[in-house]
């Protein structure tokens, strides 16, 4: 009972070089380098448990959501985490530090090459596949999360800032719990 319609033959062109990433390609080497470093820094801040720095990567009114591929496809408004504004990000970090109870663990982010594009004046978009390896205090190590970051990055200011980050997880199932941001 295959519901999928029979596809057309190979698309004549299909502009594969831009693919899903919207907007014009972003090829300025300097800006590419800055964004690559920025994305790496954001991941490393989490991996190194410098979580208090993490909200600083976002614009004051940034949107940060973690959801699943399945929920996103279904257009469901509730995912797994939903923060509006840097303050809510900071609240998450402080809850983790002082309120929440969980077994100590660390993340190691593996980022694929970010697919960059121009999304408007002073705005870049990036789609970055990622995987997060979680390690428990006893040395137990596992692939905890995989998915993609869909980012909007403000490039106008002196420092780059995330205007929005949508984290789309491949799996709708979380192993144990999610407390350290992805």
């Amino acid at each position, binding site marked *: 009972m295959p*519901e999928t319609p029979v596809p057309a033959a190979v698309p004549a062109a299909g502009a594969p070089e831009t693919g899903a990433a919207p907007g014009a390609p972003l090829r300025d080497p300097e800006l590419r380098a800055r964004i690559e470093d920025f994305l790496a820094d954001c991941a490393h801040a989490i991996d190194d448990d410098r979580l208090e720095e993490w909200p600083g990567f976002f614009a004051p009114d940034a949107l940060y959501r973690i959801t699943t591929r*399945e929920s996103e496809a279904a257009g469901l408004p509730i995912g*797994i985490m*939903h923060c*509006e504004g840097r303050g809510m990000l900071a609240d998450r970090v402080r809850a983790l530090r002082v309120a929440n109870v969980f077994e100590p663990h660390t993340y190691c982010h593996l980022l694929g090459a970010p697919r960059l594009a121009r999304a408007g004046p002073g705005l870049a978009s990036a789609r970055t596949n990622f995987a997060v390896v979680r390690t428990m205090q006893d040395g137990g190590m596992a692939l905890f999360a995989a998915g993609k970051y869909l980012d909007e990055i403000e490039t106008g200011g002196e420092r780059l800032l995330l205007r929005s980050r949508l984290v789309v997880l491949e799996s709708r199932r*979380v192993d*144990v719990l*999610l407390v350290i941001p992805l």
Partner: protein
Amino acid sequence: MPEASLAHAGALSTPFAWPEEGVTRVPYRLFSDPEIYALEQARIFRGPVWHFLCLELEVREPGDYRTGFVGDTPIIVTRGRDGRVNAMVNRCAHKGALVCHKERGNAKALSCVYHSWTYDLEGRLMGLAFRDGLRGKGGMPADFRAADHRLQPLRVETFAGMVFGTFSDETPDVETFFGPSMCAILRRNFSRPVRLLGFHSQTIRNNWKLYAENVRDSYHATLLHTFYTTFKINRLDMDGGIRITDAEKPWHHISFAKRATLDAAAEYKAAEVHSASYDTRLEGPELLDAWEEFDDGITHCIQALFPTLAVQFTLNSLAVRWFTPRGLDRTELFWMYLGYEDDAEAERRMRVMQANLTGAAGLVSLEDGCINEFVQRGTRGGADAAAFMEMGGKTVESSEGSRATEVAIRGFWRGYREIMGLA
């Protein structure tokens, strides 16, 4: 050991004796013995109990199907042409393949991909390929009767938008099983058409019954989930209590609290609640924006339905939570977030925000993802030891005035012990 061998407690290779103190004691062996697990499959999951299958809205249209599990047994729920909801085992009558290998879909009929045996939406065998062979050669013998073969059906009842199924003819109807008091509150929660707002699941690394206890444990929330306490969303010093909804069958319960009635009690200072260390200013206070949705003043209400379902209305967050054993020390916990079809945009927005409190990353629930694993791991090597649960006394009866009690947990074990036939 084959599942087949464990229809009765008498079949256990090591006899089980419940401690004489009764359900105030729970031997840890119950969380680590594979024979107990097999026995539960027969007595509880295939036994005289109503099991939550899905929400009606998941099979809204005729032909909609949705797969799931009752214990280890794979299930299909369908909406028939006649609009009625059906449930059957997801096991082909031919050689046992999953008939539906997709989690959801819509189909005119259920066709097994292996040899194309095809069933109607009630699970009756409609036809099979090459039944008469080709050109008169091969095919089924003359005495083959399609009517002898069908997908094993479950009894189905729907209530308050939820679909329940049971394998047993002895199970009383759903409203009798859950009792009028429970059904009343469920009707309150599902009084208007609901819409799905979110769905995800968690793997928790513990025996399913540890989560069943956790849901009924009104004693832990304020101590473990300090975010709750700190932000005064739910504390034991609010008016609230535990209602055992059926004194005869104290398997289910309702836990409720009225936020407005908070009257900070001295015991909170005494209690080792480490939330004391947390100042209560939120940088993003909209997180907790809420409105009075009902006039009974109840702002926090959880209904725990035996064995593996909980419905919660916390502030304005309506969620259905259920769990499925995935082996002796693994359980999958499902979260389904709901709103009403006619919610105003601002209301939906608040439900979305409040969802941050619960689920796999919930500010006040994430601890439950690991705490039951801590019990699973803590009890290793302790199969002969037992839990001690006398908080709120040793009896099983409603505790309208206090939630500093383990009465609801004792109620669960009362039901478990009875159904399992563990003397």
